């Protein structure tokens, strides 16, 4: 009852100074906004990283051509055709913990099916690649070893291709021209969604590596026919990954006859590590921003305190009058506390909304899932309220402590 009355009095007082009230809560708005935004963005980024690592396939290493950036001249990755199918085969053969070592050669090429065109990545692989990526053929079948060896004109396509070229009809049995060479679709892959680079992993056509080399890619590549884009290596045991990395390094340096003091002409990456690192970077940024938000909330609290102190001074006569007609100290204290609380909660609400909007915008731009955490909103608003109460306490106390007769005489 009394609480409701204080609420009414407080909102009226705040409405009188709309602009001042709005400016006062700016710090709270920024603080709460940053918290809500960062928690949501962090959660989205985290979900994204986990999802990508999941679709990547577990325990994956990539070997790519190109020099490491060590000491002397830097060689652009991929400019030197250094990785061959033989390298892949020997990694598989020599290293016990390697389950598969799948070579891949790819290029963006226009596709034609019936009267439709589509440009996509066509990759020459063998069946090992799908094992490495833990990628199932959802419809149809995978390559047979005969097809791999003979370089048959068969293709396995991603779900995007089915949608774009075959109007969503089932893929197997369809014919597809890659460049000018007709291929028969034998399988459609299960969906993977967006990859590490952001583009859909399902927008892809796989053909046997030998077919790629001889019929599609090798001819136009202008480099050695043997050159691979990368080798995907699936390791049987996650804990063995650093060791395997070292073993691959030694093996390939031997095979490529690289002198001990020369840099390698290939590099080994752990894509999960890279994704984790990116996730960690987002998290670090989030932590920093939350620190900024905390500062902002405290500053917001101080500005609430400041404005409440001003307000108490301005309204000293009003306070005296209220006391004269019977307001107790508790009534006065409540009036100003509730005013501070409303100020901070309004700031919190506006901040939460703008933070959520910002988070949605960021997630949308980055292609992350949108994860607005209701807990972050509740927590941030709760904290804003806490700030409002704690910084409103002293001004409210000052108001309540006024002597009625002194307050009434105040000029």
């Amino acid at each position: 009852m009394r609480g409701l009355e204080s609420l009414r009095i407080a909102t009226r007082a705040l409405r009188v100074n709309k602009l001042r009230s709005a400016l006062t809560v700016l710090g709270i708005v920024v603080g709460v906004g940053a918290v809500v935004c960062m928690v949501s963005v962090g959660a989205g980024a985290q979900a994204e990283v986990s999802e990508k690592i999941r679709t990547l396939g577990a325990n994956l290493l990539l070997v790519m051509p190109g020099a490491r950036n060590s000491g002397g001249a830097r060689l652009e990755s991929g400019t030197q055709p250094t990785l061959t199918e033989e390298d892949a085969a020997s990694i598989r053969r020599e290293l016990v913990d390697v389950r598969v070592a799948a070579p891949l050669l790819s290029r963006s090429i226009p596709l034609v099916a019936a009267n439709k065109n589509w440009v996509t990545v066509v990759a020459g692989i063998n069946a090992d690649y799908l094992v490495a990526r833990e990628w199932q053929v959802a419809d149809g079948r995978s390559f047979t070893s005969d097809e791999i060896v003979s370089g048959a004109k068969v293709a396995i396509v991603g779900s995007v291709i089915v949608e774009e070229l075959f109007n969503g009809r089932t893929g197997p049995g369809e014919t597809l021209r890659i460049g000018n060479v007709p291929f028969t679709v034998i399988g459609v892959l299960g969906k993977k969604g967006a990859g590490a680079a952001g583009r859909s992993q399902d927008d892809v056509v796989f053909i046997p590596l030998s077919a790629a080399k001889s019929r599609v890619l090798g001819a136009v590549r202008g480099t050695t026919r043997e050159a691979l884009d990368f080798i995907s290596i699936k390791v049987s045991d996650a804990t063995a990954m650093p060791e395997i990395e070292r073993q691959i390094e030694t093996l390939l340096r031997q095979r490529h006859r690289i002198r001990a003091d020369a840099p390698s002409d290939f590099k080994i990456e752990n894509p999960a590590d890279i994704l984790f690192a990116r996730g960690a970077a987002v998290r670090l940024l989030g932590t920093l921003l939350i620190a900024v938000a905390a500062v902002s909330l405290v500053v917001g609290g101080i500005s609430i305190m400041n404005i409440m102190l001003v307000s108490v001074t301005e309204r000293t006569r009003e306070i005296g009058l209220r006391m004269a007609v019977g307001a107790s100290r508790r009534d006065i204290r409540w009036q100003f506390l509730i005013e501070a609380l409303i100020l901070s909660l309004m700031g919190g609400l506006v901040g939460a909304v703008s933070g959520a909007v910002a988070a949605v915008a960021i997630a949308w731009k980055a292609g992350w899932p949108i994860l607005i955490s209701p807990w972050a909103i509740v927590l941030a608003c709760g904290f804003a309220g806490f700030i409002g109460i704690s910084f409103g306490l002293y001004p409210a106390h000052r108001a309540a402590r006024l002597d009625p007769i002194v307050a009434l005489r105040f000029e």
Partner: protein
Amino acid sequence: MPPLVRTAGLSRHYSCGGTIVRAVSDVSLAIEHGDFVAIRGRSGSGKSTLMNLLGLLDRPDSGEYALNGREVAKLSEDGRATIRRHDIGFVFQVPALLPRATALENVELPLVYAGVPPSRRRRAAKEALERVGLADRGHHWPNQLSGGEQQRVVIARATVNDPALILADEPTGSLDSATSDEILSLFETLHHDGRTIIVVTHATDVADRARRQITLHDGRIIKDAQVAARNSPLNTAVLGSSP
């Protein structure tokens, strides 16, 4: 039944730059229920200080004060607030209204703090405004009202909670004589309704309407006279010439 107001040796001192000002000094008085008392005296004689003490806005330095038989001089601030809320209505010299509340809301204020539910509060405030002849001004803001009207709103507020004691410190001090007259008539009506009123005034015509006149000088009561008959020219002459 004890007198409504009984003070004994009530004193309030201010020390200002080494000198002690005895604003109210050793005041003992009793005021019965239903009385209409005028307090007079020169400027600085301690009238306002005494009113603030009687209205429990200020604390005495020494002395006793029993309101309605209850000792209130040493009450806590909250205890004093409770008595102000229920038993006292205050009218100030300068009409004191909340500028951002309508006339009606201003009148409601004591009831708000008394915890009266809104509908009952509204009804009581309307009745109080009606009694001071401002029934149609309930939704006006204070700055839309004349000084006299504002003072009537204040009187409505001072009476809305049906207080035992109404205190008015120079209620007509800032008004012209015609308006003052209206205000005084209001006090008379209140008195006829059986309320106890103490009014501080410089003006003789105000004092003349009271039943009892107390004169202060340097914080002490120097004269305390029952007015036998209303508007007696004799009384006016005597009191008008007193210090």
